[in-house]
C-alpha cells in the first residue's frame, strides 16, 4: 500500500546546516530532500499527527556544519529531537497538548552563550503555541490558544507557564538573533523579549504594536530593532526601534528614556516604537515577509505570486514575477546563494540568490483547479494510466501534471492552454476534462473559454500523443468547437484501437479515430471524426466502451444507448433511469454496465446488457466508477449522505470521513469490501494493473492526497497499521464500512437483511475477533447503534495489538 500526495506546504521548510538538504513537513512525517537533485532522500517517521514545526539546530562553528539535528513539534502533542542524517529519533518529549508552533530561542543565540547557559542550568527553553484541548468541550468562547514556555532539557515537561491566551493557536515568530519572539493576533503584534539570565523564573517582558488591519505576517530584523508586518490589504509596515522603553535592557534604560517625548511619525497610540513607515505595492494580502541575513533587504510576497525585494533604506523594489501561485513561505539557507520559496500549489522552488533564478522545483501533487460553479461535479480532472501508475491531473495553471503514484513524484507538466495563470484573476478558461487511453499513449483534454457578455466562447478538444522518452505529451490535434457551441460532457477511449468518443450536451456524440493506424510516424498522426450519432436530440452525458471494444454505451440523459462504434449503428436502448446518467462504466469484460447519476436523486445502477434489463440499484451518490480490465470487478466511490452522517450514533464511526469505496464483483449487489475515506467529494478512483499482474486500486481524494492499495489482500491493512497508521487524510477501517452502510441502502435494505450473515462470511476471515458479532440470525441482532459501537471496539483492540 502506498500513500502519497501529501502537502509540502503546511509549514515552512528548513535547510540543513550545509544547505544540501531541505527538510519539509509532509503530514505526519518530515521528508528530507536533496537540494541538488530535488529528490527525496529519507523521511523522519514517528509522529502520529501532522508535524507543525521543524527547527534545524544551527551550527555555531564550521565544524558543526555536518551535524544534522532537528526538533519537531506536532499536533500529537510531542516534541521530538532527531538526527536526520540517520534518520534516528533521539528524544521524545510529551507536551500533552497539540502544538501548533514552537521556537527555541537559545539555539539562535551566540554559541558561547549557549554553552554557558547549558552549563549553568542545563536547560533548553522552548516557547510553544498550543491548543488547550481541555477547554474545548466547555464552550467555544474560551481562549484555546496558549503561548507557553517549556524546558526541553528535562525529560518530562510539566505544564509550562502560560504567557498569553488567544482564541486560536497562533504561530510564533522569533527574531534571527534569538532576542525576541512574538505572535500576530488580529490587528496587533505581541512581542516578548527572552530573558537572557539563567534564572528560571525571569519573566519575559511584553509589548504590543497596533495596526488598523488584520496582520498576516511579520518578521524581525536580524540585527536592529526593526519589525516588518504585512496585512490583508497588501501593506507592508516597518516599525523601527521598537521596545526601547518596555523591552530595553537594564543598563540602557536611562539613556533611552530621553527620546520618548519626541514625536514618533506614523506610530499609533502609545506604541513603543520610534517610527512606522508603510510600503504599498501588493494588491492582495501579504503572506511572506523575511529579512535578508544582513538586514539590508526585505523579501515580501503574497497572493499575487510575486516575490518583491525591498531595499530597506530606500524602499526600492526588485521583483521575481509570475511564480503563478500564492506564496506561503520564503526560507533562507545557510548558504547565502540559496533560498527557497514555497507556493500554495504544493511546489517548493529553490532560488539562486541574489539573481532570484529558479534553480529547481520540488513538485508535490498540485492542487485541483477551482472551477466556476456551473462545472462543479461535472469536470473530470483526474485520469489514470493503468499500466504505469501515472495519474494525469488538471492543475490551476491550465496544465496537466503527470504524477507517478507509485513513486510519489511529479514527472512533468503539459501546458494545455497557452495561458498564464494569475492567482486571484477571474477564471475565464477552464480545462474541463482529461482522459487517458488504456495504454497511456494518448491523452485527450477539453477546455472551455467562457464567453464575455455572451460573445467569444469557445470549446476545444485536444488530442495529445505521448513521447515515451521524455514522459510527456505533444499536441497532435486540436478540434475547435467539436460539438458546435455545446460543451463536451465526457471523453472515453476505446480499449484496443486508437478510437475515442466525445459526448456533448448539445445532443450528439462523435467518434474520433486516429489515422496513424496505418503505421505512420507519430508526427503525422492526427485525429479525425469517424462518425456522429445522436438519440432523439437528447443531451449526451456519459460514454463508455465495453471491455472488448465492440459496444459503445452512450447515456442520453435518462436512457442508455448502445452502439456499434465501427459502423455507428444503434444496437439497442436500455430502459430509463429516474435521473440523468452522469457516469458509465462496463464492469470489465462482463456484460454488466454500471451507471451513476446524482442530480436530483442519486442513483447507482447496474444493467445487464445481454438481457437489456436493470440488475440492481442503490440510492448512492457516486463520485467515480472504475472497473478492472480482466475480471468483472468494479469499484465505486460513494459519498455518504449527510443525513446519515449527522446521526448521533454514526458520528464517531466516520470521524470526519465522508465517503466510501465499495468493491463489487460483477452482478453481485453485495459489495466484496468497503473502505471509508475522507474528502471523497471531487475524488477519483481507478484500478491499476501493474506489470506484476497485480490488481491495485488507486484513490485520489478531493485535495489530491492518494492511496494505492491491493483490494483483495488483507495484508495491506496490517501493513498500513504499522507503516502508515493514522496519517492525516486517508484512513483504513477495514470492513467497518459495511455495517455502517447497510443501514443506508434503502432499496435493498429489507431484502438483504436476511442475508447478512452470508454477507459477512465471504470477506471476513476467521481469525478476526469481530466475526462473532455477525453470526446468528438477523432477528437476534442487536440494534444498529449498539452493533456498530461493539464492532468498533473490537476493531480498536485489534489495532493496538498490532501496533505493539
Amino acid at each position, binding site marked *: 500500500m502506498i500513500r502519497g500526495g501529501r502537502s509540502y506546504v503546511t509549514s515552512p521548510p528548513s535547510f540543513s546546516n550545509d544547505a544540501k538538504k531541505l527538510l519539509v513537513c509532509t503530514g505526519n512525517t518530515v521528508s528530507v530532500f536533496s537540494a541538488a537533485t530535488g529528490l527525496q532522500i529519507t523521511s523522519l517517521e514517528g509522529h502520529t499527527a501532522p508535524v507543525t514545526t521543524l527547527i534545524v539546530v544551527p551550527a555555531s562553528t564550521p565544524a558543526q556544519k555536518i551535524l544534522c539535528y532537528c526538533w519537531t513539534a506536532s499536533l500529537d502533542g510531542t516534541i521530538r529531537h532527531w538526527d536526520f542524517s540517520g534518520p534516528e529519533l533521539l528524544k521524545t518529549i510529551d507536551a500533552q497538548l497539540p502544538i501548533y508552533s514552537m521556537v527555541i530561542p537559545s539555539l539562535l543565540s551566540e554559541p558561547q552563550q549557549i554553552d554557558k547557559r547549558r552549563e549553568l542550568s542545563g536547560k533548553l527553553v522552548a516557547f510553544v503555541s498550543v491548543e488547550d484541548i481541555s477547554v474545548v468541550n466547555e464552550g467555544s468562547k474560551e481562549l484555546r490558544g496558549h503561548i507557553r514556555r517549556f524546558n526541553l532539557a528535562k525529560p518530562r515537561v510539566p505544564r509550562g507557564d502560560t504567557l498569553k491566551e488567544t482564541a486560536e493557536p497562533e504561530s510564533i515568530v522569533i527574531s534571527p538573533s534569538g532576542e525576541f519572539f512574538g505572535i500576530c493576533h488580529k490587528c496587533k503584534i505581541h512581542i516578548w523579549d527572552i530573558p537572557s539570565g539563567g534564572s528560571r523564573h525571569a519573566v519575559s517582558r511584553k509589548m504590543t504594536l497596533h495596526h488598523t488591519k488584520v496582520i498576516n505576517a511579520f518578521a524581525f530584523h536580524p540585527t536592529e530593532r526593526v519589525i516588518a508586518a504585512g496585512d490583508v490589504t497588501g501593506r507592508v509596515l516597518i516599525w523601527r526601534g521598537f521596545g526601547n522603553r518596555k523591552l530595553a535592557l537594564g543598563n540602557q534604560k536611562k539613556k533611552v528614556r530621553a527620546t520618548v517625548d519626541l514625536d514618533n511619525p506614523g506610530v499609533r497610540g502609545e506604541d513603543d516604537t520610534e517610527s512606522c513607515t508603510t510600503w504599498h505595492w501588493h494588491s492582495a494580502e501579504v503572506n511572506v515577509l523575511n529579512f535578508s541575513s544582513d538586514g539590508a533587504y526585505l523579501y515580501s510576497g503574497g497572493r499575487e505570486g510575486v516575490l518583491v525585494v525591498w531595499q530597506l533604506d530606500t524602499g526600492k523594489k526588485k521583483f521575481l514575477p*509570475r*511564480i*503563478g501561485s500564492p506564496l506561503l513561505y520564503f526560507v533562507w539557507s545557510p548558504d547565502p546563494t540559496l533560498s527557497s520559496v514555497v507556493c500554495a500549489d504544493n511546489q517548493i*522552488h529553490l532560488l539562486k540568490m541574489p539573481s532570484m*533564478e*529558479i*534553480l*529547481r*522545483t520540488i513538485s508535490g501533487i498540485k492542487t485541483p483547479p477551482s472551477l466556476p460553479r456551473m462545472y462543479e461535479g461535472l469536470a473530470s480532472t483526474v485520469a489514470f494510466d493503468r499500466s504505469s501508475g501515472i495519474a494525469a491531473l488538471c492543475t490551476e*495553471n491550465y496544465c496537466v501534471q503527470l504524477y507517478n503514484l507509485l513513486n510519489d513524484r511529479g514527472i512533468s507538466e503539459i*501546458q494545455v492552454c*497557452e*495561458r*498564464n*495563470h494569475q492567482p486571484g484573476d*477571474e477564471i*475565464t*478558461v477552464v480545462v474541463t476534462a482529461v482522459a487517458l487511453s488504456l495504454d497511456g499513449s494518448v491523452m485527450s483534454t477539453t477546455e472551455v*473559454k467562457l*464567453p*464575455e*457578455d*455572451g*460573445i*467569444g466562447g*469557445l470549446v476545444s478538444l485536444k488530442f495529445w500523443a505521448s513521447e515515451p522518452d521524455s514522459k510527456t505529451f505533444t499536441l497532435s490535434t*486540436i478540434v*475547435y*468547437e467539436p460539438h458546435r*457551441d455545446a460543451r463536451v460532457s465526457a471523453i472515453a477511449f476505446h480499449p484496443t484501437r486508437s478510437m475515442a468518443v466525445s459526448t456533448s450536451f448539445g445532443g450528439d456524440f462523435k467518434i474520433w479515430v486516429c489515422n496513424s493506424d496505418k503505421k505512420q510516424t507519430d508526427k503525422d498522426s492526427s485525429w479525425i471524426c469517424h462518425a456522429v450519432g445522436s438519440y432523439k436530440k437528447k443531451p449526451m452525458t456519459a460514454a463508455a466502451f465495453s471491455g472488448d471494444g465492440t459496444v459503445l454505451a452512450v447515456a442520453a440523459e435518462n436512457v442508455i444507448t448502445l452502439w456499434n462504434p465501427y459502423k455507428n449503428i444503434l444496437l439497442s436502448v436500455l430502459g430509463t433511469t429516474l435521473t440523468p446518467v452522469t457516469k458509465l462504466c462496463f464492469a470489465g469484460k462482463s456484460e454488466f454496465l454500471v451507471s451513476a447519476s446524482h442530480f436530483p436523486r442519486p442513483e447507482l445502477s447496474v444493467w445487464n446488457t445481454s438481457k437489456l434489463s436493470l440488475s440492481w440499484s442503490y440510492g448512492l451518490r457516486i463520485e467515480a466508477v472504475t472497473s478492472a480490465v480482466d475480471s468483472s470487478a468494479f469499484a465505486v466511490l460513494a459519498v455518504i449522505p449527510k443525513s446519515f452522517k449527522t446521526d448521533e450514533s454514526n458520528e464517531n464511526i466516520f470521524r470526519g470521513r465522508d465517503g466510501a469505496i465499495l468493491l463489487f464483483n460483477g452482478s453481485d449487489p453485495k459489495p466484496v469490501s468497503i473502505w471509508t475515506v475522507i474528502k471523497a467529494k471531487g475524488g477519483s478512483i481507478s484500478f491499476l494493473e501493474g506489470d506484476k499482474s497485480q490488481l491495485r486500486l488507486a484513490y485520489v481524494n478531493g485535495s489530491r492526497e492518494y492511496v494505492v492499495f491491493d483490494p483483495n489482500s488483507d495484508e495491506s491493512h496490517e501493513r498500513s497499521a504499522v507503516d502508515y497508521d493514522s496519517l492525516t487524510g486517508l484512513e483504513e477501517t477495514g470492513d467497518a464500512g459495511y455495517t455502517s452502510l447497510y443501514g443506508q441502502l434503502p432499496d435493498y435494505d429489507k431484502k438483504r437483511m436476511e442475508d447478512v450473515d452470508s454477507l459477512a462470511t465471504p470477506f471476513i476471515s476467521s481469525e478476526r475477533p469481530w466475526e462473532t458479532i455477525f453470526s446468528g440470525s438477523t432477528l437476534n441482532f442487536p440494534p444498529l447503534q449498539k452493533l456498530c459501537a461493539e464492532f468498533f471496539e473490537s476493531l480498536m483492540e485489534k489495532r493496538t495489538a498490532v501496533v505493539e
Partner: protein
Amino acid sequence: MEEELRVRLNDHQVSKVFPVKPKSTAKPVSKSETPESRYWSSFKNHSIPNLVSSVSALAFSPVHPYSLAVAHSATVSLFSSHSLSSSRRFSFRDVVSSVCFRSDGALFAACDLSGVVQVFDIKERMALRTLRSHSAPARFVKYPFQDKLHLVSGGDDGVVKYWDVAGATVISDLLGHKDYVRCGDFSPVNDSMLVTGSYDHTVKVWDTRVDKSKWIAEINHGLPVEDVVYLPSGGMIATAGGNSVKVWDLIGGGKMVCSMESHNKTVTSLCVGRLESAESRLVSVALDGYMKVFDYGRAKVTYSMRFPAPLMSLGLSPDGSTRVIGGSNGMVFAGKKKLRDVVEEKKSLSLWSVRSQVDETRRRALRPTYFRYFQRGQSEKPSEEDYLVKEKKGLKLTRHDKLLKKFRHKEALVSVLEEKKPANVVAVMEELVARRKLMKCVSNMEEGELGMLLGFLQRYCTVQRYSGLLMGLTKKVLETRAEDIKGKTEFTGLLRNLKREVNQEIRIQQSLLEIQGVIAPLMRIAGRS
C-alpha cells in the same frame, strides 16, 4: 515606435510568455511531395512570348549547346537553350509543321504545309537542299539517330518518303497509310527502322532496307494517331491519339503494354524524359493544357502540371536542363533548371583558397590603428571539434503582443486592426475576451478606430471561420456605440455594406436550409435500406 521586442526567457521561469496565435486551420490532405514531383516542379519558368501563332513543333539539337528550334507560323527560330534568346530565324513559304536536327546538330530539316522539305545549315540563311515530292502538305520530317545522309518525311498524301538528302531524291516511297500521315520516329538502336502514325488509326513499322515493300508490322491505336515515339530500349513505342496514350511492345508482336487516359482532350505531343536517377518517363502534352508525366514501368501518372493555353508541342533537352512546351497561342513555356556542374565547382574552390591566403596576409598586417583590428575574429566560424555554446533564442513578440503584455488592450486591438491580418485580429479579440476586456476596448474606441473596426467587421463577419465571434461582436458594437455611429456620414457606407453582407448571408443560409430539406428525406431513405 520600436517594432520588435526580444524577451530573454529564463529556462526555469515558472510562467512563460505566450504570444497571441491565430487558431490553426486544417491542413490540406494532399500527399507529401515525392522526389519525382520535386524534380518536375524544379524547372524554373521562363516564358518566350511574342511568337505570332501556334507553336507547331519544337526540336533540340542533340549536341552541346543543345540549341532549340521552334517552328511557329512560317518561321523556324533558333534559340540558345542557356539564355533562351533568339539567335536566328529561317522563313518559309508556308506554315512550318515539323522540324528536326541532324545527329551532329549542324543541319536541321523542316517541312511546311506546301509539301516542301528544306534542309538548313544552322549558320546560314539559305536552304542547302529543297526536297520537293509531296503532293499535299508535309506533316513530319525526321532524321535518323546516327545516319547523316538520309531523312524521312510524311504528309497528307498518305505517303512516307525516304530521302537521300545530298542528292535531293526520294529513295523509296513507303505506301500503306490510308489517311494523312502525321508523325513518325526512327528507332534509337537501328537507323533503318522507323514507325509512322496516321489518321487511319494505325501505326506502321517500316524497314528502309527492304525496297518497295509493305510495312513490317501494324498497330491499331483506335483513334487518329497524333504522335508516336520510340522508347529508349528500341523495343517499345508510345503512341498518342485522341485523349489516350498507349505503350506497345513491338518485339512482343505489337501487344499493348499499358495505356494512360488521364488527359481530357487530344494529346498532341509525346517526348521521353530522363530523371536524375536515369529512369525514363513518358511526357505528354494535350489541348487541355496539361503536361503529364507517365511512368510506363509502373503504369502511373507521377506528375501533372497545368498551363494556361492548349499545348501543341513538347521538347526536352538531351541534358535534362530545359523543358519547353509550345502553346497554341504562340507562347513557349520554357522551364530551366540548374545542373550541378562539377568542373565549375572545382574552379570556385581553387579561387577560394587563393583568396583565403590573401586574407591571411592581410590579417597579419592588422594594427590597432585600423578599426578592423577591433573587429577581428568576429566572423570566425567554429571548427568541427569546437564545443558550441548556443545562445538561447529570444522570443519574437509582435507589436500587439507587446501591447497586450503591458495591458494596453485598446491599443493592441487597434494596432492589430491596422495590420490587416484577419486571423491575428480574431486571435487578439479572443485573448481580450479571455481577459474580459473586449467590450471595454470597444466602448473606449475613438471615431477613427471605430471606423476601422466596423470596416473589419463588415468584411469578415460573414466569413465562416470567424463568424462565431464576429457576428456577436458586430451586434454588440452597434448596440453600445449606437449614438456615435448614428449621425456620422463616414459610417453610412460601412453600415450599408454591412447590411448587404448580412442580408446576403441570410439568403445563403436559407438556400442551404432548403437544400438540407431536400437531402434529409433522401438520407433517411438511404439509411433505412
